[in-house]
């Protein structure tokens, strides 16, 4: 295919604004899939994505399109919509020349729309703005057009008005893709350079690399080298996604497709890496490659009826399909053997947790998510810790620094007050407020990541009746007056329950946590004191009263079988609890620190 007739593009949109519907509509209109094969959201293949209406792993699909007697090859590269996957999004965009920016005519510009649109601009993509769902009664295409103009500086008259669901305006959009978007820039470098923008694991064929060729041609049988990792492989198969995998003879400049090269582990392939030939390598890799950085950490321990080894193999299986999370064995005196896992962000963590339980039929106990802290020690060393228990002695800490993010929230203006209140509770500092339309506002905060790492989004949704959206971006680390709260149960410190909080919140957080624990831990044969302490100083206390009577009055011949069953259940329940000294703590107690509700 002539490089001029290739269009590589992605669709960027906020959750539920219709990205997948539009993709499906394009597949249908270009005859890539027949009406019969047409099923909703063809591109998203994972259950969770479909349920949540988000795309986690990018896919790519090649469509053929003819206009004015010319044949075009349209490569639609799907991108994950969430900012946790910022790096993946940026790699997918690097493989494109254009982007369709979809905004829901009933919802307007959202935080993620902006974040991804800015990213597209940074990547130098030609943006085609699209207002979707114009056929809905609640559509306000004009208002939304103004929002786009105001926030992105794109003239509202340039916006395409479509309905992906009913097919309105799709012909015009397809025309625009070939007329307004540029084709791939010819690269005269004779050396092979292909960008890996995604990968997934196939049980039979190993790792499937999603590639965009920038220069040279990929052929079966070539010996290739990953420039970042310096590993070499032999190409066994290559082709395009139509959307199913279809073998082709080659992948030439500007083309998008897959490469299979008997790669066993997903972790051997790094997104953003450049493929070149072993025999005639390129001088320099394509720019932009970096290792994904994990910002959110949480411990996972085997739950009910689950063994450590089961959990390990489940993580191994998951890591086959997602190289961006990490897991290391972890041993907690309280919870036994488990894993410390690192994630790109909050959503990423939730997805992994859900997939873990759903795809493997196992139960996990998850500790409160924490962020990475930076510590300047008294020895003038800078170290990073991602768990409260790793924190050095207070006397060894010169400065404790926490990650700070730029938090953008878009909300209807009547939500401002409540959001300000929430932001204040979470130590967020308002940087600016911008009216993006008459009724909607963008608020920008400086926020400690630790404060928004869990349940902030839920709370935001709650107080804005679901209308507010948010996105965040890491700014760096900053010193803060942070303390570690230790929780003592029956005088024993429980590492898995300790948490790092700002000193100003410490007392109230400690007290709330104890109240939750008091409810979560069953009564024992003795009274159990609960204490919260900072550096040995008790800041809050509670106690769990002893139970006074627990005995079966009658146990005769006819009662044995039934009673044994009941007692056995009790013993099983006890076994599932974790023993801290002589106190048995159920798993839900460990979850109670996750929950900041009243």
């Amino acid at each position, binding site marked *: 295919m002539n490089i001029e007739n290739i269009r590589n593009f992605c669709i960027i949109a906020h959750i539920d604004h219709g990205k997948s519907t539009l993709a499906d509509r394009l597949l249908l209109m270009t005859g890539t899939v027949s009406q019969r094969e047409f099923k909703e959201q063809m591109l998203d293949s994972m259950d969770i994505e479909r349920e949540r209406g988000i795309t986690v792993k990018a896919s790519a699909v090649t469509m053929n399109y003819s206009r004015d007697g010319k044949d075009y090859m349209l490569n639609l590269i799907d991108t994950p919509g969430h900012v946790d996957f910022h790096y993946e999004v940026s790699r997918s965009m690097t493989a494109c020349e254009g982007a369709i920016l979809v905004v829901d005519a009933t919802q307007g510009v959202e935080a993620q729309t902006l974040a991804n649109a800015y990213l597209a601009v940074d990547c130098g993509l030609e943006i085609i703005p699209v207002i979707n769902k114009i056929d809905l009664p609640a559509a306000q295409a004009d208002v939304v057009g103004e929002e786009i103009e105001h926030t992105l500086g794109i003239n509202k008259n340039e916006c395409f008005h479509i309905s992906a669901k009913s097919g309105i305006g799709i012909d015009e959009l397809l025309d625009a893709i070939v007329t307004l978007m540029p084709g791939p820039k010819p690269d005269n470098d004779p050396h092979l350079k292909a960008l890996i923008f995604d990968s997934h694991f196939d049980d039979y064929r190993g790792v499937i690399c999603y590639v965009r060729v920038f220069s040279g041609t990929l052929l079966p049988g070539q010996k290739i080298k990953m420039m970042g990792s310096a590993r070499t492989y032999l190409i066994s198969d290559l082709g395009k996604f139509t959307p199913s995998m279809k073998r082709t003879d080659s992948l030439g400049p500007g083309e998008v497709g897959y490469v299979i090269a008997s790669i066993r582990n997903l972790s051997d392939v790094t997104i953003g890496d450049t493929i070149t030939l072993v025999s005639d390598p390129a001088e320099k890799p394509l720019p932009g490659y970096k290792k994904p950085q994990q910002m959110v950490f949480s411990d996972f321990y085997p739950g009910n009826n689950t063994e450590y080894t089961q959990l390990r193999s489940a993580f191994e299986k998951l890591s086959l399909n997602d190289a961006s999370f990490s897991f290391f064995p972890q041993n907690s005196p309280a919870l036994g053997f488990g894993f410390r896992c690192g994630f790109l962000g909050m959503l990423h963590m939730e997805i992994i947790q859900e997939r873990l339980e759903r795809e493997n039929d196992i139960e996990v106990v998850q500790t409160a998510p924490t962020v990475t802290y930076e510590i300047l020690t008294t020895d003038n060393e800078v170290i990073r810790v991602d768990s409260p228990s790793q924190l050095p002695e207070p006397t060894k800490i010169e400065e404790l620094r926490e990650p700070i993010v730029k938090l953008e929230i878009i909300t209807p203006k009547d939500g401002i007050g409540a959001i300000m209140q929430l932001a204040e509770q979470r130590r967020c500092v308002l940087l600016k407020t911008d009216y993006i339309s008459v009724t909607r506002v963008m608020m920008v905060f400086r926020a400690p990541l630790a404060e928004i790492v869990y349940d902030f989004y839920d709370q935001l949704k709650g107080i804005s009746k679901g209308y507010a959206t948010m996105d965040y971006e890491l700014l760096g680390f900053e010193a803060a007056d942070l303390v570690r709260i230790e929780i003592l149960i029956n005088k024993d410190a429980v590492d898995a329950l300790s948490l790092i909080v700002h000193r100003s919140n410490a007392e109230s957080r400690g007290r709330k946590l104890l109240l939750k624990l008091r409810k979560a831990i069953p009564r024992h*044969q003795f009274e159990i004191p609960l204490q919260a302490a900072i550096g040995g100083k008790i800041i809050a206390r509670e106690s769990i009263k002893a139970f006074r009577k*627990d005995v079966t009055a009658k*146990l005769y011949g006819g009662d044995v*079988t039934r009673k*044994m069953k009941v007692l*056995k259940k009790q*013993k099983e329940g006890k076994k599932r609890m974790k023993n801290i000294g002589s106190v048995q703590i159920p798993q839900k107690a460990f979850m109670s620190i996750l929950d900041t509700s009243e």
Partner: protein
Amino acid sequence: MAKSVYVHIPFCKSKCLYCGFFSKPPAQFDTQKLLNAEIEELKNSSFAKPVKTLYIGGGSPASVGSVALCGFLSEITKLTGQPEEFTVEINPADVNELFLRKLFEISVNRISIGVQSFNEDELVFLGRRYTPAQVEQTIKTCKKIGFQNISIDLIFAVPGSNLNTWHQDLLRAVRNDVQHISAYSLTYETNTPLEKIKSLGKIKIVNEELDRLMYERAIWLLGQEGFQQYEISNFAKPGFECRHNLTYWQNDFYIGIGPAACGYIEGLRTENINDIEKYIEQEDKAGEKTEIMPVEKACQTAVLGLRLIRGIDITEYKQKTGFDIFELFKNSIDKNLKLNLLQLNENRLSLTQQALPMADSVLSDFAEPD
């Protein structure tokens, strides 16, 4: 070989509020047919003859009529031989002197009376059909006839009761000069009217603390009066422990005859069908059998044995189950010894005094090996 036989008479003229046993009104059934069926079941059972203990329970055995019952009991003892301990449960409302005399004549030597309370209000609440005076009369009659081993059941923590009413109840029981007292905290069994009333919130449940105080009062007062506590809920004058019930707690074999009766025979736990008509029709009346594996047996032996105040003899335990109790339950024993809920004295492992009111929390540690 089983040396104990339990015979269940599943009839009762009225169902008490708290009763979770299998019993039906006798008027709705051909009671004689059932008694015949039970004889048949006993004929097909194997046990060591003569049996050591024979226990006739219910329901209320007398509700089938005194003539029918006595005839039945004679048939039974023809098969079992003369038991050393022969107990019949009676409800004071269902018996008279003539009947009790007949029981004595056919060599019944232990009477167990379901008194439950000497407090009129409580008897009404519980749905019992007699007065405290009737109870005392029954006890007196039994003694007059010559019964020297009389047991009564008492229930405490009945809604509306307090430490004082319970104390009075205990005193009255003691004054009647019986040999054996079972004192049970009121249990809200599932699928009983009592449970339903409780769930509706219509009664004031005795709280845990008072329940415990009442239990401790019983232990103390009965102890003062010469009754020895030998099981969690059972107290006896020296030598009057219920030998039949000891069979259960020592995890020895026994046979269960009649609908819904349970047995434990040669390593199998059996449970008969809880349907009177089907039971009568069944060719093979021996009900569902569950094989008790060695480890399970060891657990049951521990759980049951620890209900006895004297506890478990370590050596006997090993002989009986083949397991060393300290190996099977190492952590549990260590933990409970440390918490002073178990004690180890002269080769016996037993609950401590303070563990008694919360025995289940300890016993559940023995329901499965560590």
